[in-house]
């Protein structure tokens, strides 16, 4: 399709007819200031194409120019395909709204327009061309505008909205243009039916079978049946167990009965044997007790005899030991005496050494003292000479101080002040001169002038052609003899002021100089210099004094301190001499002795002393030990004697029972031994005639009785158990467990068959759904790739770099993807970038659609945020793409679009009284 002309009348600001004629087939620019009606023109065109003429929607009513009764009328000439013949033809649409609603569609015959259709029929044909649709009520919205929905960008409405590509109409058009498979309505319906079936079986996220679905119910039923079958099986097993137990018990009972019979008959046979054995046993018991009594007696007697013997042996041993101890005691006594003698000898030697040591120490003391006093004397002498030096310097210092006090010198400040005043005076003089009068005389002939400057009077000769400058302050008189006299007065008050200051400064300076009795600055300075020199000397002397003192270790001290020190030392010397009974003269001549040899002597004596000390200790210890030994031995001998007498007493006691005779005791012992032996022999004989442990019939008999009782008890128990189990079986018997299980298994079979059928059905539905989805996907991706490629290319062209790609998702939503593959949301781009991207998308889609039929793209103020550089690239792109389509650009900044070729329409001009307007190119 292609727009040829557009005329509006009675539309908003266009009361009178306004026609834009001669649209360029490629690029058109509609421009003008804000609110001139550019967008209104496009909206009017849209209403003409898409709305019913009969509509009374508010948007259409609002098109009526304010304050008039005019009805909107629009005429559009365009090239389009009505479908009535092959190819596109030139058409005219005439549309009227509100009071005079009409729609007329006419076709160009070559010489004029011929009506093709009107009213609803015409509107239907237009809708077919545009693939647009009607809303339920009211005016059409952009969603109903078919192809124009994407291709006509309206300012501010969708500036930052991403163009919607998942419009069914658009996609179908694109598919047709690209020869891609489409989905028919019936297929949609078929799919919906399948999906609806599937959604009844599976939950939304297709994660599980719905609770109410047949599959879920069947599975539940299956579970129940299995549980029931398991329950029946449990019961059957119970019965089986009981049966097995009963059989086991019966077998066991049979075996036990046989055993019982055997044991009973054995018991019978044993009875006679039992009696005999009992009698023998009692005889044996009696003999044993008699033997026991004899044995005790024998033991007692033997014990007594033993005790007597032992006591005798002990006494003999003791006596031997006592003898030895006595001998040892005598030896110990001798040793003690020797030790005492040693001790006395060592003590004496030690004392002699100590006396000698004391004397040597005294000698050493004296020697040291004499040295010390000599040193002190030397010190005194040194300090005295120093004191002399210091006193001399001190009196020099005092002389300098006197000289300084006589001079009155200016301080540094006063010096500075004088200098300043001098400077001020000079400056003021110069200033006055400068501010004063200056006469610049150029002589045209030789001349002599007299110049009176108030304070001075001069005569000057100026040759022909020469010049001279004369200065005066306030007034001057210039006289050229015999010619003229010029009297000049300065009106400058400044000079007077300056003169005042100058006088003041001069007075000050004079006063200052007088203070110090000098004539000028030179004198003043000389005075200052002299004072400085004297001060320096003073400084130097003072430092020297301090230095000398500090070399004595007296920092910040005075002479008096030094004097005090000397005095102190003299006192020390005197007292020392006193103690040694020497005079000062003797001090240097007396012989102090050799300190070193004295020290050596003392050391040797000390060693000897310690050795002797040790010897004394040792001998003392030896004496003590000997004494101790003596004492111990005495005690031992006493104890031994006591023990002997005790033992003898004991022997006497023991033998009392036997009339004091040891012989009798021995006899009694022998008798009892004989008796015991006889008894033992008798017992042995009896024992051998009894049967052994193993063959004892009594034992066996008892054991058998116990076993028989046990068996009988067990049999009873088992019989009771059997009847218990039989009772339990009886309980279970009436139940038709097997029948119930059979029925449940039959039901289970049926349920499983049905479940299988339902599962197959569910899988089948799922398979269909997935196949359709997969094939649709394949269809779409062909389409989305085409768009993606173009958008990526054009956008890279506009931006001047290629670091992002466009990506169309499954839902035909647009995203950007960088080359690593990360998704970038277009929402995050800047205003300008988004603007450009969305325009590029529209152009790309328009290009695709234009393959089959050239499209009309409208860009109403679409690039306001775009920078100059990209703007110009965008224009390049538009220029290129417009070869295949018609682009209409609305703008308030026509300068930005100057480089574009094509038709231009100035809306401002159009709204001037002259209604018809042809494009600039005419």
């Amino acid at each position, binding site marked *: 399709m292609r727009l040829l002309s557009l005329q509006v009348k009675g539309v908003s600001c266009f009361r009178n007819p306004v026609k834009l004629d001669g649209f360029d087939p490629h690029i058109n620019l509609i421009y003008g200031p804000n609110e001139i009606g550019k967008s209104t023109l496009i909206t009017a065109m849209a209403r003409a194409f898409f709305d019913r003429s009969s509509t009374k929607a508010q948007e259409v009513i609002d098109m009526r120019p304010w304050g008039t009764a005019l009805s909107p009328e629009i005429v559009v000439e365009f090239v389009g395909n009505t479908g009535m013949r092959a190819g596109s033809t030139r058409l005219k649409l005439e549309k009227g709204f509100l009071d005079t609603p009409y729609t007329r569609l006419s076709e160009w015959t070559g010489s004029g327009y011929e009506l093709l259709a009107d009213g609803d029929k015409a509107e239907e044909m237009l809708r077919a061309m545009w693939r647009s649709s009607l809303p339920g009520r009211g005016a059409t919205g952009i969603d109903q505008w078919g192809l124009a929905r994407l291709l006509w960008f309206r300012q501010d409405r969708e500036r930052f909205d991403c163009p919607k590509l998942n419009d069914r109409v658009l996609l179908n058009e694109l598919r047709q243009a690209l020869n891609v*498979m489409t*989905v*028919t309505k*019936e*297929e949609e*319906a*078929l799919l919906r*039916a*399948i999906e609806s*079936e599937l959604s009844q079986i*599976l939950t939304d996220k*297709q*994660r*599980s*079978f719905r609770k109410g679905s047949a599959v879920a119910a069947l599975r539940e039923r299956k579970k129940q049946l299995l549980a029931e079958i398991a329950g029946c099986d449990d*019961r*059957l097993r119970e*019965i*089986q167990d*009981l*049966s097995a137990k009963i*059989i086991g018990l019966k077998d066991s009972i049979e075996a036990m009965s046989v055993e019982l019979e055997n044991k009973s008959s054995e018991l019978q046979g044993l009875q006679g044997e039992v009696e005999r054995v009992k009698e023998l046993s009692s005889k044996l018991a009696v003999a044993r007790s008699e033997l026991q009594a004899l044995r005790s007696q024998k033991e007692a007697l033997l014990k007594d005899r033993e005790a007597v013997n032992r006591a005798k042996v002990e006494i003999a041993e003791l006596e031997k030991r006592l003898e030895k101890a006595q001998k040892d005691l005598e030896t110990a006594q001798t040793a003690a005496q020797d030790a005492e003698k040693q001790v006395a000898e060592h003590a004496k030697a030690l004392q002699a050494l100590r006396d000698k040591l004391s004397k040597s120490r005294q000698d050493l003391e004296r020697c040291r003292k004499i040295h010390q006093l000599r040193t002190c004397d030397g010190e005194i002498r040194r300090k005295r000479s120093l004191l002399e030096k210091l006193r001399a310097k001190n009196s020099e210092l005092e002389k300098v101080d006197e000289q300084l006090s006589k001079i009155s010198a200016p301080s540094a400040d006063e010096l500075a002040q004088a200098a300043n005043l001098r400077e001020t005076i000079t400056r003021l003089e110069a200033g006055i001169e400068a501010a004063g009068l200056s006469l610049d005389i150029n002589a045209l002939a030789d001349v002599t002038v007299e110049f009176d400057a108030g304070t001075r009077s001069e005569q000057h000769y100026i040759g022909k052609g020469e010049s001279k400058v004369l200065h005066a302050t306030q007034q001057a008189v210039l006289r050229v003899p015999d010619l003229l006299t010029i009297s000049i007065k300065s009106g400058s008050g400044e000079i007077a002021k300056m003169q005042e200051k100058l006088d003041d400064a001069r007075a000050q300076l004079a006063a200052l100089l007088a203070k110090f009795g000098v004539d000028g600055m030179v004198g003043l300075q000389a005075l200052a210099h002299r004072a400085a020199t004297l001060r320096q000397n003073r400084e130097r002397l003072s430092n020297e004094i301090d230095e000398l003192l500090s070399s004595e270790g007296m920092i910040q001290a005075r002479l008096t301190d030094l004097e005090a020190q000397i005095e102190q030392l003299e006192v020390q010397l005197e007292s020392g001499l006193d103690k040694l009974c020497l005079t000062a003269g003797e001090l240097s001549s007396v012989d102090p002795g050799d300190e070193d040899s004295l020290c050596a002597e003392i050391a040797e004596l000390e060693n000897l002393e310690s050795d002797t000390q040790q010897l004394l200790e040792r001998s003392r210890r030896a004496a003590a030990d000997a004494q101790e030994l003596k004492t111990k031995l005495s005690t031992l001998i006493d104890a031994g004697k006591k023990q002997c007498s005790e033992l003898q007493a004991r022997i006497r006691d023991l033998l009392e029972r036997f009339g004091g005779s040891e012989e009798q005791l021995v006899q009694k012992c022998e008798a009892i031994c004989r008796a015991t032996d006889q008894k033992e022999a008798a017992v042995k004989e009896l024992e051998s005639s009894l049967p052994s442990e193993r063959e004892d019939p009594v034992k066996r008999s008892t054991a058998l009785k116990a076993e028989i009782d046990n068996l009988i008890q067990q049999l009873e128990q088992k019989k009771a158990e059997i009847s218990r*189990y*039989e009772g339990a*079986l*009886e309980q*279970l*018997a*009436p139940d*038709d*467990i*097997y*029948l119930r*299980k*059979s029925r449940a*298994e*039959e*039901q289970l*079979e*049926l349920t499983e068959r049905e479940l299988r059928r339902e*599962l*197959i*059905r*569910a*899988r*089948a*539905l*799922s*398979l*269909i*759904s*997935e*196949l*359709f989805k*997969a*094939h*649709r*996907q*394949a*269809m779409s991706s062909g389409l989305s790739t085409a768009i993606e490629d173009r958008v990526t290319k054009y956008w890279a062209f506009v931006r001047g770099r290629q670091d992002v790609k466009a990506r169309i998702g499954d839902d035909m939503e647009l995203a950007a993807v960088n080359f690593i593959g990360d998704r970038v949301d277009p929402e995050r781009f800047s205003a300008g970038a988004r603007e450009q991207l969305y325009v590029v998308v529209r152009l790309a889609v328009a290009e695709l659609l234009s393959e089959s039929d050239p499209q009309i793209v409208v860009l109403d103020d679409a690039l306001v945020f775009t920078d100059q550089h990209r703007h110009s690239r965008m224009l390049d792109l538009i220029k290129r793409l417009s070869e295949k389509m018609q682009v209409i650009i609305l703008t308030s900044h026509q300068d930005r679009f100057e480089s574009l070729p094509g038709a231009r329409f100035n809306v401002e001009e159009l709204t001037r009284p002259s209604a018809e307007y042809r494009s600039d190119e005419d």
Partner: protein
Amino acid sequence: MSLRFIHTGDWHVGMKEANAPEVADRVRDARLEVIDRIRRLAQETKADFVVVAGDVFEHNQVGRKLARDVLRRLGDYPVDVYIIPGNHDYAGPDSIYKTRAFQDVPPKVHVLLEQKPVVIRRLNVILYPCPVTQKRTALDPTDWIPVEEPNDMIRIGLAHGSVAEFGFGDLTDNPVSLRNVEAKSLDYLAMGHWHSTSVLSPRAAYCGAPETTGYTEKDSGNALLVSIDRPGSEPQVSVHRVGKLKWVEMEHELSLSVKDSLDQLRAKFNSLQSDSGDTLIRLRLSGVSTGEALARMEDVLDDFRSTYLHIEVDTSSVVLDPDGDKLFEWAKDRPLTRAVLSDLKRLIDASSHDEAAAAWELAANPSGVDLAAVLKRAELPEDEDGAITREVAQAALVEMLKALEGITR
């Protein structure tokens, strides 16, 4: 006058009906009703007594109700009935014959639980019952029969088990050696256990179950009438039908002509000669068909379902061809659906070859869609064995047809 008696057994009262669970109760009832028909046979043939060779009950725990029902019907018998337990209702501690229901049996009913001869003096018969006491045993239940001097009594053995010589069953299946027939000087050995009637030797036979129990049983639904003139003479055995149920297997191949296929099927049904109310039919379909044809066939079968006791249809061998269907027509100018149908067809074809070929076919996909991935996605959660098979693909065609029918209505 020669001795005549009815030899029956293997009644399996209370048996589970795994083959036709839908009509299980009806089949169980038939097993009870046949007891009355055996009674009528005894009356008609003027038999002297009836021997039941074991497995009267399917299980020792079929319950009191069934036990009482059986006893009631047996109570109506005009002659004595001698019963031994078989390996299903064996005489263990939990035996049904030891429950309260059997403490009160009608006077003509004799349950023989011990290896003791039963003398019927009036008829000159000694009966040697060999009751089964354990489900499995390797011992010959007929070994206990005492070897005696031949006398003028007719000696009849009554046993339940496998025949050692013939190799029916295994060695622990109560094996009876036919040698004992001669060794114990038996005139006749009445055997139970095998469900098809079978004469083992001139003096031994399996009576078979009186009511057929499944589609594959060869010759059952009978009771035997045995006549013996005098001790030592050869018995004459005649087979009498007492069973009511008929189990029929039918095969039918479908062709692409829907009308022909259905007409042929209808004819097959009509040609069944039987009392349709007692007939169970298993119909195996094969061949190539369309989804529409299968749907129409369900309608045909529904007509017959009310006539026959039970019809079971096995369509697992039928291959669907979507080209013959309405679907194909409809998809002609709908490329999306065409692509989907073509994939379904490939799936159906692929599963009839072996695995490797199928995988190759799936991989070489002209439509740009990765079929293997689609199959994976189509698998349902919580569906452990839920692989997408040919059956599923065929079901998918059927569902699509149904949906199509839904939207074109």
